[in-house]
């Protein structure tokens, strides 16, 4: 806004310089023309006076009359008048001081020109008055003879003043216009800006998961209204898509769970029938404790074992279905991003995993500040840390060969101005860079030979990535230089973020 007005003022200034030159020229021309006209009038009046010989009785009277006329002209806002005779001697002046009457002006170029019959005009510097003058000199003609000349001089300052006055009036008008245009422009743009801000606020609400957010299509400039209409169309489409995905999740859950139930019940029943038949006796005895002491045949024992394995597979299928549903729900989730203390969550998670880590012969500890406020959807930090720790526990126990006494998992919260990074570090076998990049894909599995790898549903990290996306956080896996893996998530800082 200010820049716009500044440019307008600069343009005005630049234009004023040629404009003032032009005005000066016009003003000078106008003045010269008017002076010439006046000079001719005076010349006409002087004609008789100059013709009258100086010795004549009427001469003083006529000279006095002409002097009075010259003074009258001067006083009416005209110029200084000097009338010379054919010899270039001043006869009449408009001055109150008549001392120069009788002085010869013949040497002055303009007088010489006029006595030669030319009309001259121009500027000159007056040594007497110490100012620039504008002059006009005309000859006084009587028939064929030039009997004298009239010279009118005018201070140049008068022209300059006139020009300055006009310029300042113009400048004032221009300035008023600019200021008025500025005020109108400001009011208009403020309205547009306000509408845009409202629209921006609506966009943020939609981005934060409020699917009911709609823009006002009837307010503001036509461009804003059209933008609002487009925005609303997009929001409606988005809402429909998310709704469809939610419906799909519900449908899929029903459609897949029902046959899975039938499968499970049948497998369970078949195993129980065999177990009873084999006379294992003890209800609920573990299938992997081998054949019972009864008369169980080797074939029956093998069948029981296979059925138990089939049941485990059915469980895994169930886990995958549940995982997909969770993923699908997370993707269509519109849970709002809120502030949470990720340091507190991390400490709690460490405490939660402590007993299991201890059982597995591992250490687990928290490293970081007391508080770290970040923006995330409510349960995301907890679930992400749990997934990372789960993987770290698997990784740390998978390599039992060179198990040192120092093995531990570190959950670290570090300031990453302006956000916070939560890392889970393990000293397991780590992953190749290629695997680090692919690990967040659905159904990706680390090393399928690793124990426990088959029990996962391959969706844990995909869900982590989705939770992070919904929380506007970034996830990453990285090989540690000292061996092992660093799994991290970087959150945006919350408003009340505390320093480390």
């Amino acid at each position, binding site marked *: 806004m200010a820049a716009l007005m500044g440019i307008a003022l600069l343009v005005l200034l630049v234009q004023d310089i040629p404009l003032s030159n032009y005005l000066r020229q016009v003003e000078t021309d106008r003045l010269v023309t008017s002076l010439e006209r006046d000079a001719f009038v005076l010349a006409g009046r002087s004609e008789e006076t100059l013709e009258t010989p100086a010795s004549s009785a009427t001469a003083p009277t006529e000279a006095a009359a002409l002097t009075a006329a010259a003074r009258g002209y001067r006083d009416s806002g005209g110029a200084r008048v000097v009338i010379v005779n054919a010899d270039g001697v001043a006869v009449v002046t408009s001055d109150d001081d008549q001392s120069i009457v009788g002085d010869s002006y013949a040497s002055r170029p303009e007088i010489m020109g006029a006595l030669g019959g030319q009309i001259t005009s121009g500027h000159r510097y007056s040594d007497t008055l110490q100012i620039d003058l504008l002059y006009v000199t005309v000859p006084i003609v009587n028939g064929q003879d030039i009997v004298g000349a009239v010279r009118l001089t005018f201070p140049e300052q008068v022209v300059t003043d006139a020009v300055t006055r006009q310029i300042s009036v113009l400048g004032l008008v221009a300035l008023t216009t600019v200021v008025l245009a500025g005020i109108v422009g400001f009011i208009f743009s403020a309205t547009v800006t306000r509408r845009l801000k409202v629209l921006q606020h609506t966009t943020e609400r939609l981005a934060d998961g409020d699917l009911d957010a709609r823009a006002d299509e009837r307010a503001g400039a036509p461009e804003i209204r059209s933008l609002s209409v487009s925005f609303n169309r997009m929001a409606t489409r988005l809402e429909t898509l998310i709704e469809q995905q939610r419906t799909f999740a*519900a449908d899929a*859950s*029903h*459609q897949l*769970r*029902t*046959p*899975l*139930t*039938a*499968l*499970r*019940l*049948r497998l*369970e*029943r078949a195993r*129980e029938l065999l177990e009873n038949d084999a006379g294992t006796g*003890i*209800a*609920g*005895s*573990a*299938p*992997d404790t081998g054949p019972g002491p009864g008369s169980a045949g080797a074939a029956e024992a093998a069948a029981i074992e296979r059925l*138990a394995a089939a*049941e*485990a597979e*059915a*469980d895994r299928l*169930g*886990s995958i279905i*549940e*995982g997909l*549903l*969770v993923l699908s729900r997370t993707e269509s989730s519109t849970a709002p991003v809120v502030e949470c203390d990720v340091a507190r969550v991390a400490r709690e998670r460490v405490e*939660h*995993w402590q*007993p*299991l880590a*201890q*059982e597995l012969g591992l250490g687990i500890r928290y490293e970081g500040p007391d508080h770290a406020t970040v923006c995330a959807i409510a349960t995301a930090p907890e*679930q992400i840390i*749990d*997934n990372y*720790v*789960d993987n770290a*526990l*698997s990784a740390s126990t998978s390599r039992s060969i060179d198990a040192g006494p120092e093995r531990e998992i570190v959950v670290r919260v570090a300031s990453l101005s302006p956000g916070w990074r939560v890392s889970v570090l393990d000293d397991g076998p780590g992953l190749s860079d290629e695997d680090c990049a692919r690990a967040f894909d659905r159904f990706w599995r680390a090393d399928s030979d690793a124990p*426990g790898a088959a*029990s*996962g549903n391959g969706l*844990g990290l995909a*869900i982590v990535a989705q939770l992070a996306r919904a929380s506007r956080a970034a996830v990453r896996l990285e090989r540690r230089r000292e061996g092992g893996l660093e799994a991290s998530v970087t959150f945006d800082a919350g408003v009340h973020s505390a320093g480390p």
Partner: protein
Amino acid sequence: MRVLVVEDDGPVASGIIDGLTMAAFESLHVETGRAALAAMTSFAPDLVLLDLGLPDMDGSEVCRSIRSSSQTPIIVVSARDEEIDRVVALEMGADDYVVKPFGMRELIARIRAVSRRTSAGAAAGSGAGDAAVGGADGSGARTDRVLGSLVIDTRTQRVSLAGTEVYFTPTEFDLLVYLSRDAGAVHRRADILHDVWETTWHGTTKTLDAHVAAIRKKLGNPGWIESVRGVGFRFGVPE
């Protein structure tokens, strides 16, 4: 005990009936809501297993119709695990809610629990003793579970070990109650997660292990809960 199975999916229904027969229950299978309402008088069941997704009418509607004329306990068996579905079914008069896929042992345990609760309520002789409230346990029913030196009180949610009170988180307590209900039996991981965690997805495969480890630590002896590799866990009193 007579159980009416209202389920439109044939394979699931026959799986359930098979299991019920094995547990010595008498059962009848119907596929529609109308047939279920008709069977209420003709079959006169002691308990109803009701699927919510029926072809002719909504399951919750069937639930309300049954409840308007009788106090027969109803267990809803559904593939929907949203909290709202649960709430609606329980509001309509259901006594329990089981999400598919479930194991037969869990289903039978629930059938027994519900019928015990309702018969206890009926025995109290009070018309206001609504079985659906599930608080009918209070009248004379034992709430203490004693396993060696361990005493679990399900009513006050307190656990004491050799006379000293041990504090558990709500999830740990539920898990302990679940495992100790059938001491000596192996509980499969999937069943435990399904029954104890219910709607909430467990997130990671080791969440269960973490809770078991926490309980073991608080009980001071890993022998209380034995890990059965590849299958699950078994609760027992350590020697």
